[in-house]
């Protein structure tokens, strides 16, 4: 452990200690607010169930995330090629983000059933906006002189996008991926919350309704861990894919 982790660890430990002592000294009932030690004690017993449900949540999150990436790249490229599409679609994209997901997600369940699909759609809806915006901004930030140079070399519009604009957008795209990646698990949980046969969202609603808050918090821990894991995977891939972005400053 390097010095880098010292302060995050100290502050996290401090926070848990505060929580623990608050529950201890106020004498809060365990079913109302479990202390960190209660959650820690319940967690190992919960693990098999959490893994079982977590698999479904992770699957929905990853598939939805992948779908969002594909749609975002396609839209960004189309919007870059055509100013008409760009002006026409951009407001729609913004409006799509103002719709409360929680109000339309039940519709997806009515339309597509209790299976994987409605969750995937919720995840994709939550994730694709930061992705589209990050790709478009990245493509806009490209060095105009580079584009001109390729134009003089006789490059076509598509060649310019492929050779210059998309690679130039990668650092911004990866920033978007990190944001969207952390949203994706949460999106899947929201989708499951409103109706599912399996998944952490379902597990959490059940725990909620039976006042088993130590279970609820155990599930929250898994959701957080999965989100952080996705974030770290994206960070590692980013370092491999865009080495110039990380190396330039060193």
């Amino acid at each position: 452990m390097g010095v880098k982790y010292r302060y995050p660890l100290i502050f996290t430990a401090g926070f848990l200690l505060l929580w623990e002592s608050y529950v201890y000294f106020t004498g809060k009932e365990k079913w109302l607010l479990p202390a960190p030690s209660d959650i820690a004690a319940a967690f190992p017993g919960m693990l098999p169930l959490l893994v079982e449900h977590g698999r479904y949540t992770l699957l929905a999150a990853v598939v939805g995330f992948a779908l969002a990436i594909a749609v975002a790249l396609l839209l960004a490229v189309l919007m870059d090629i055509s100013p008409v599409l760009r002006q026409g679609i951009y407001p729609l994209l913004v409006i799509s983000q103002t719709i409360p997901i929680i109000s339309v997600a039940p519709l997806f369940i009515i339309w597509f059933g209790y299976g994987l699909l409605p969750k995937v759609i919720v995840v994709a809806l939550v994730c694709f906006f930061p992705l589209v915006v990050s790709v478009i901004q990245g493509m806009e930030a490209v060095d105009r002189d580079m584009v001109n140079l390729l134009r003089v070399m006789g490059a076509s519009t598509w060649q310019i996008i492929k050779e210059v604009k998309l690679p130039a957008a990668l650092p911004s795209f990866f920033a978007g991926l990190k944001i969207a990646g952390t949203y994706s698990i949460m999106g899947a949980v929201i989708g499951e919350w409103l109706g599912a046969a399996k998944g952490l969202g379902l597990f959490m609603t059940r725990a909620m309704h039976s006042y088993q808050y130590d279970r609820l918090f155990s599930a929250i821990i898994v959701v957080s861990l999965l989100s952080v894991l996705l974030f770290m995977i994206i960070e590692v891939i980013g370092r491999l894919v865009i080495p110039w972005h990380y190396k330039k400053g060193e």
Partner: protein
Amino acid sequence: MSKLKLVEVTKSYSTKEGPLPVLEQISLEVRGNQFVSLVGPSGCGKSTLFNIICGLVKQDSGSILLEGEEKTKPGDLISYMPQKDLLLPWRRVIDNVILPLKLAGVSTADAVREAMGLMDVFGLKGFERRYPWELSGGMRQRAALMRTVLAKKDILLLDEPFGALDAITRFKMQSWLLQVWHRFKRTVLFITHDVEEAVYLSDKIYVLSQRPGRIKLEVDVPLARPRIPGMITGAHFVKIKEKILKSIDA
């Protein structure tokens, strides 16, 4: 034979305060295999002139003749090396220099084979697999020049290629550029604000005025080839240099 001819090229940009004249009645001629320089103070519209020759910017009036004809796609005959090296940071040196060949539809294997044979000439042997950020300023410029030469166009437009280099590197690069030019037999139009550099390299020099850029002076440089560094202090060299400096001051 006239390779590149500009006839009374005029350009102004529209600004809020009205039209801003940038270039006024620029006429010049570069014959085949000639090395011609444009010298002028910064902001005299030199780069605008290059953009017009490349077809990136349209002149208000006047014409640009390539091999005696006006071309709709000047890029077919011209290869352009801008002030910044503009190497693509996501491509290795070898992949950067073959870019114009790739865009022209040459297979990667053929392009790489051709480029590898020239790495030594451009002083990049052993650095083929490096990324641009791992190279020194001089090497980056050499890689950029190699890319320009590999495009195999008759006319090279070089826009202050050595402007950002330190004096010693710069001097080495000038001698080296002359060798490359001898070897590949191309027509060169070279922009610089360094009078000595222009005299050392060129067969003919055009002096541009402050904005709006007009041709103030046309000077032939009848010094023998190959040029050697000792010439710089010779009486003939100094006389040409003085003539140009006087014209710039006037």
